């Protein structure tokens, strides 16, 4: 059934269809609608889940950790300061190998106080051990939320579904809402291997000696690697059931392109329009959309970029003292490629704190990438006023 809904509600509906059993969250703009709708569903009985009110995001994640350890499906949603406030617990969730799903609405960090889109909040959680999936449309948000539970449970790792503030969170689009029966077929009940059981209590997350710690982390790394393959399988299964596909790395007119834009989030949609126009005028330009940021799709990227001359990475985020975070990561993924195959990488930092990224901005980027001899610096800041 198609409904016109905002991205936040696409998350809520996904969580409901996934038959999530415990939800704990703390409200923060622009995420609040996600959990508001879920709390109403819990109150009305439409969703048979326990909603745990907490006094902070740190506690929200702690509650999810406990619930997930006890073997149930747990979910939270956050944004910006809320997300960075739960930073410590993100490590506990991942290290504890708990398949928690979270939606994070990308929002800038203060100061200055800013509620608009910016990826620095989720990207600064890069090393917590969470799988990260960035979405472009509300349909993708809903589908990814459901997929996230299956992925998380397949590899015992937590998954963060990421969506842009306002462009997705508060903008309504037609979304096809799958039947419960379809979702039930796709996503069976969780079957946890280790459960916290009050009748036979054991200490979870207790002391681990130096002799064993490395193996724990290594196992986490192996799971991340498995997540890569698992995601593709899950994706295919979803495509079989719904006809919709949201690959980890999506190519758009990339086959014969001499210049590729590398995007994530809603900037992708704007870039698609620009590409359509330019293609109509005979321009051989294409795009790679990065949905998956962790695990990092290194192999797929190398394949997709082999032989491409120039790449422009559009980063709506920045790692101060270095550059755009996607650009950094892609650069390091390309390092092992033979020099001849390796494209010249232009890393643009733009759209911070919700500044609009218009087709004109993207056109300028394309033109300057084409005309430059080589990138002037690692971080090319777009539209900085003097």
């Amino acid at each position, binding site marked *: 059934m198609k409904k016109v809904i905002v991205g936040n509600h696409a998350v809520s509906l996904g969580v409901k269809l996934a038959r999530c059993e415990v939800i704990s969250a703390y409200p923060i703009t622009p995420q609040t609608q996600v959990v508001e709708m879920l709390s109403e569903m819990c109150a009305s009985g439409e969703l048979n889940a326990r909603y745990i009110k907490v006094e902070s995001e740190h506690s929200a994640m702690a509650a999810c950790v406990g619930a997930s350890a006890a073997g149930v499906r747990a979910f939270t949603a956050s944004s910006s300061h809320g997300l960075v406030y739960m930073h410590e617990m993100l490590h506990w969730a991942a*290290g504890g190998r708990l398949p928690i799903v979270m939606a994070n609405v990308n929002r800038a960090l203060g100061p200055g106080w800013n509620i608009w889109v910016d990826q620095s909040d989720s990207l600064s959680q890069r090393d917590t051990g969470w799988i990260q999936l960035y979405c472009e449309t509300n349909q993708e948000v809903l589908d990814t939320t459901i997929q996230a539970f299956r992925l998380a449970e397949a590899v*015992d790792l937590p998954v963060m579904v990421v969506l842009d503030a306002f462009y997705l969170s508060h903008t309504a689009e037609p979304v096809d809402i799958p039947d419960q029966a379809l979702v039930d077929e796709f996503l069976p009940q969780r079957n946890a291997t*280790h459960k916290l059981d009050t009748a036979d*209590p*054991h200490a979870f997350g*207790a002391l681990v000696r130096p002799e064993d710690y490395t193996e*724990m982390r290594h196992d986490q790394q192996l799971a*991340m*690697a498995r997540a*890569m393959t698992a995601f593709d399988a899950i994706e295919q299964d979803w495509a079989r059931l719904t006809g919709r596909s949201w690959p980890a790395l999506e190519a758009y007119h990339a086959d014969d392109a001499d210049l590729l834009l590398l995007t994530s989030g809603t900037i992708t949609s704007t870039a698609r329009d620009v590409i359509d126009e330019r293609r109509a005028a005979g321009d051989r330009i294409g795009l790679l959309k990065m949905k998956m940021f962790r695990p990092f799709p290194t192999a797929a990227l190398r394949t997709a970029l082999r032989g491409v001359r120039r790449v422009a990475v559009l980063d709506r985020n920045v790692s101060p003292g270095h550059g755009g975070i996607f650009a950094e990561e892609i650069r390091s993924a390309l390092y092992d490629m033979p020099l001849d195959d390796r494209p010249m990488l232009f890393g643009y930092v733009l759209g911070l704190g919700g500044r609009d990224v218009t087709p004109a901005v993207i056109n300028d980027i394309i033109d300057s990438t084409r005309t430059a001899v080589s990138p002037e610096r690692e971080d090319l800041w777009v539209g900085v006023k003097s």
Partner: protein
Amino acid sequence: MSEPAVTHDSPPRISVSSTSTLANRTGSWKYIRPRYQDGVAPCNARCPTGVDVEGYMNLLREGRIADALDLVLRENPMPAITGRVCHHPCELACNRAQYDDPVAVHLVEREMGDRVLSMPPPVLRRTHTEKVAVVGSGPAGLACAYHLARLGYGVTVFEEAAKAGGMLRQGIPDYRLPRDILDRQIRWFSDAGIEFRCNTRIAGEYADKLLRDYAAVFVATGAHRSRPLGVTGEDSPRVMAGLDFLKAVNRGEAPEIGRRVVVVGGGNTAIDCARTALRLGATPVVLYRRTRQEMPAIAAEVDEAMREGIAFEFLAAPRAVHHLQGRQAGVECERMVLGEPDASGRRRPVPSNAGTFSILAETVLTAIGEEPGLEALPLHAAAPDQALIDELGATPAAGIWAGGDAAGIERTVSDALGSGKVAAIGIDRAIRTRNGEEVPPNDIAELRWSGGNISMSRWRGDDPVQRHGATNEVVGFDRLNTAHFVHVTRQREARDADHVTVEPVGTAFERATDGTAFDFGEVNPGLTAMQALEEARRCLNCGVCNQCELCLILCPDVAITRQEGGTGFDIDLNYCKGCGVCAMECPRGAIVMTREGL
């Protein structure tokens, strides 16, 4: 990165202790321990009838309506009536008042009462051979009769008037207590097996004779004689006892009172007189020698009277009634000021130097108090102005108990009901003791809701509410954890008249659209069944565990578990480390921390 299979082949490597943590008795860390104990809600402690308000609100919340009705009827046989006329001190005590608005207990009670009246009365099985005589069929007499019948005794109620009900029928106007409700309530009692003998005056030798046929006699003859003003001109035909006026109107007569009516007094009789006079077309003025604050009348009644447009002349006392020409009288009044507090704690009115003024009136209604009628009692059972009774209602005369307005209690319907219940317990105890039965040597204080009235359930020892480590402490607002509550607006009737913006449909105010035509129809429309349940859900269940399970969820040591076979919880002190989370979080103060070893 290597890329192994997708399948969930091996469990993830996580740190889990191989041995059970039960070996780690965290309980040894503590120096304070939680105690799971139900206390007493303030509403229960303040209800003059001794109703388990908290208990039935909780049953309503759980949707157990039949059980809730039973819990009310154990203590209060006429919720339809108390729900209408009780001054509801429970709501003054209600902890929720300190959070938003007090729970509208009387309105919930009233809706329950109306349900009771539409159901067949309980079958009160006779289990004792003894019969008890009740003299007077006002609220005290009715309550005593009902409770005795419920305890298994045969009961006969003697009433001097043609119909039972006492002051409920004769003194309380229709617009507060519709006759229909009262009639149905009396029928409910007689259908339940209580015998009524109306038109029967018990006094002098008749009183003595009752003890030949009855094992005990309960005298509740009320207070029916208006106290005189004690001013010159009081014998004027223009001066009438307020209570006589109300009785006449309640009999269906319409006394000639003219247009201008002065009512003297500040109690409920005065307000009833003024509002009744208004409904007969008069323009009443209430004369009271203190101020609004000291008025003993039910505050809501005063509010309503004012909103009906009745004038009040405060700090004014009548000094003389002058007979003028025609049917007019001049009431000469003196201005008063408030002086030192008197024995009642209220500031005493003393004459000011401002001189006197006069009010013209066709009728002066006196309502400065009533004297009890004690004719049914032997002389040694009464002081000059009231029956003498002990803690359980017994008079010094063997076999004779007393209660209600005649026995010097607070002059309210609910206090009268409460005194009737207490005497029923006193009589039961005396008869059973006489029969050689083992009557628990109960400390009477333990039967009380923490210093309030006696609980019939406690006396019978068959409280249907399971109490956990019960104490008799009142749990005040400071012991509640309001973090777990949400604000919910009270159904109808905000705390004071200032809150009223739109007249609820069905009230006298709404009917009297032109602001004058008040009728004798019931002023307050009460709550619908749905609204009553909503209101019951506002109750915070102060001091009593309502199984919310917060403690169970929040105890970090999983030391709290559901009691096997019971309704409550067990705290495993082997693992409780005394962190205090449960006591801190319990929304209703049903867990307290105590020192180790105490």
